[in-house]
């Protein structure tokens, strides 16, 4: 997950309001998903492990992002494919249960508890969102 430093890297000195906004978005990831940052990191590592069984990529080619559209929260896997590699898996027919490059998961609710039900939480994507994700979005254009 991008740290606060990463988010502001290369930009001019952020205002205190911008810092507050980014901190809020980050803390709400934990609040809304009810997963600690450690658990989120574990989940991310496992997801990358599964993807690597099907695609010949590096750990750094996968970015797990949390997005929010309206009040729905999405976990998005951004998988960059290097054209020079030969991805044998892509030529074989897709096995049942395998995921497409542009997969978007909508997490099931963690538990029927009083807490907010949705797992995974959102921040606005700094990098372009997958086309499939855009096609699945309920709402019209995202605010900048």
């Amino acid at each position, binding site marked *: 997950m991008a740290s606060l430093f990463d988010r502001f890297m290369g930009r001019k000195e952020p*205002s*205190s309001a911008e810092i507050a906004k980014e901190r*809020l978005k980050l803390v709400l990831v934990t609040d809304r998903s009810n997963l600690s940052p450690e658990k989120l990191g574990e989940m991310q590592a496992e997801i990358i492990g599964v993807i690597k069984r099907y695609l010949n990529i590096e750990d750094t080619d996968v970015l797990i992002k949390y997005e929010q559209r309206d*009040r729905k929260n999405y976990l998005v896997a951004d998988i960059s494919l290097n054209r020079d590699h030969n991805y044998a898996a892509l030529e074989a027919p897709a096995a049942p249960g395998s995921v497409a490059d542009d997969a978007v998961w909508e997490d099931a609710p963690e538990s029927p508890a*009083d807490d907010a039900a949705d797992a995974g939480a959102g921040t606005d994507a700094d990098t372009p969102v997958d086309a499939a994700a855009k096609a699945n979005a309920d709402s*019209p254009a995202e605010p900048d």
Partner: protein
Amino acid sequence: MGARVITVTSGKGGVGKTTATANLAVSLASLGKRVVCVDADIGLRNLDVVMGLENRIVYDLVDVVEGRCRLRQAMVKDKRVADLYLLPAAQTRDKTAVSPQDMIALTNQLRTDYDFILIDSPAGIEWGFRNALAPADEVIVITNPEAPAVRDADRIIGLIEAEERRIPTSLLINRAKPEMIRRGDMLSVNDVMEILSIRLLGVIPDDEMVLISTNRGMPLAMDNHRTPAAESFRNIARRLTGEKVPLELFDDNSGIFRRLLRRLGLVS
């Protein structure tokens, strides 16, 4: 048609629920509506002080629930504005003296005689909040443009969304400071909306007159004050009655944010 029961809540304490409840009640009554506001903060009575009715209390909510008096006997009529009543909280009891079922029964008794029943919820997410939420047809979530308040508002909104019945929820951003927003030292209306993503009811600017009016026991909206907060409360009351009143967003002069929010369906 019966009353609209609107619960005013926030999660975080001290963001302006009681002040907003009082001023919205007065504004709605000034528009000719029949209004009763209910202080649901059992044990920490406050709505009476903000409204300046603290000397007129004989019975309270718990007396009604426990059968020591009739509902009408506990309701304090505000003599300054027509058709405005207060049902005060108990000061000396703990919050479990009242249950969600009690609140539903109580508001059902009031529905036929009033246009608006405003319930001032206590802070928090436990028993008092559950009591205040039980009879609600709608909820107004109050927040301030600062991180802890927005975080707690998010939690409250999540709890409301988790309810089995659908409860329309809108946001009131209180204590906005336009100059700090312009300087980048306060979350803007747009920032808060991006995070919370519910319908925006209105924005109240920080205004010294709010404290002064609490000191006097005369809600701002009562005196035809033209200060910014009073105007905003009046506008919100008008929006609640269905009138289309343009939103004051304070952080943009070109209207871009307003158009954007309208396009997203987040603004009335």
